[in-house]
């Protein structure tokens, strides 16, 4: 077992050298999480915009459900996706278990409620501000949603970054449906868990450093966008 200082030095060496294993794990993590954000955006942005503008009587119920889903335990999502994708499951014939696709599905399910909720919150104020004017232009409900999504683009980017932050840091679901297979489904968080248990602190710390840097970058981007939004007098 290495001492902490030795491990940290070796970890920094690995990060600076951009070691091959490290690079592979980082790239797979980014691929899985960015894909999950993409699919969550496809569903979450229009759904959140619809929730921000609808007068449906189901709206309060749907809002409650979305809020509840934001706190979904990742291991439960992992378990449900595992059951669906396993040979006996409804999607078993697709043979997706222990593939990056399965990990993307699990992460998409986890972050879609976050994207929906933040989109609704961002667009609700905009809708209130623009409702009458857009109605005067004769804009229909689809046009209204498209316009609001464009008007709220800065705030929505923040919502997507928040989703990405949740996805990249997630471990419970992806370890269940991905299996943490070396060179196939091993991502940063699952590697950190594995390497720590093996006592290989250098690689675990190296990945941890990259993960923290990514989290910092995402947060910095969110803060910068937020201050830009405030400066430009946007409603979001």
């Amino acid at each position, binding site marked *: 077992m290495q001492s902490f200082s030795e491990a940290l030095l070796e970890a920094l060496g690995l990060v600076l050298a951009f070691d091959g294993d490290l690079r592979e794990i980082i790239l797979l993590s980014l691929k899985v999480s960015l894909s999950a954000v993409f699919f969550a955006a496809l569903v979450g942005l229009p759904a959140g915009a619809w929730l921000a503008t609808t007068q449906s009587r189901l709206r309060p119920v749907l809002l409650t459900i979305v809020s509840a889903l934001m706190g979904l335990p990742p291991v439960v999502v992992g378990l449900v996706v595992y059951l669906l994708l396993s040979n006996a499951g409804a999607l078993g014939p697709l043979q997706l278990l222990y593939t990056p696709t399965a990990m993307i599905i699990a992460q998409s399910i986890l972050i879609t409620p976050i994207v929906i909720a933040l989109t609704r919150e961002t667009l609700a104020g905009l809708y209130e501000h623009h409702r*009458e*004017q857009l*109605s*005067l*232009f*004769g*804009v229909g409900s689809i*046009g209204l949603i498209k*316009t609001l999504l464009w008007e709220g683009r800065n705030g929505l980017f923040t919502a997507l970054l928040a989703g990405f932050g949740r996805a990249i840091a997630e471990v419970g679901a992806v370890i269940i449906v991905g299996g943490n297979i070396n060179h196939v489904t091993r991502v940063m968080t699952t590697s950190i868990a594995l390497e720590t248990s093996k006592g290989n602190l250098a690689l675990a710390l190296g990945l941890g450093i990259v993960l923290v840097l990514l989290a910092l970058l995402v947060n910095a981007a969110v803060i910068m966008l937020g201050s830009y939004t405030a400066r430009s007098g*946007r409603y979001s």
Partner: protein
Amino acid sequence: MLPISSIAAQDLLIQRGGRVVLNVPELVVGNSACTAIVGPNGAGKSLLVKTLCALLKPDQGCVNWGASSPDLPRRFKVGLLLQRPVLLNRSALKNITYALQASGLDADEASIRANEALQAAGLGALIDISAHRLSGGEQQRLALARALAVKPDMLFLDEATANVDPASTQAIEEQLRQAIKDGLTVVFVSHDMGQVKRLADEVILMHHGNVIEQSLRSEFFEHTDNPISRSWLAGEILL
């Protein structure tokens, strides 16, 4: 599509919290080229305007645009300019092209007409500037240019110059005079009696949700025998 030469309200009633806030048995606007709606705060002026524009559905009664009920194809034929302009987060030009495209124009035609509208409003130099970066007066002039660009038959203004400086007020009034000359019918809400005297042919006084008087400007200011109108003109009605 027949032009909307007037808007009529019949038996309008709106209640809020059990209180009647608008009660208009019969009203027609548009018989004069320019009508001013005046009255103290809370008189129901904005409610009336939004109801005539079909933005608000009354609890009772109906509104007709010309001979028939308001409908989507004629939606852009009745415009409304609010006290605080509602502009999209895009350039001045694109704010106008958006409205024009929503009214059915293709992108090229919309761009040409938007350019013309900005030039006519004296905003030609601000074409590519984000609408949110403009001053309050420029934003209101842009909102008016956008409202006029879609060539409405009737344009309502709800205290549209209340938050702008005298120079912008003058520019807006000039734009309105030109538009009226070109055939537009204007109905505006204002607390500025000077503006009412400068622009309006006809005046509607509202108080406590009721239309107290509707008469020609000269009659209203010089010969009214309605006691509430006389009190209003004497500055004795504040609420």
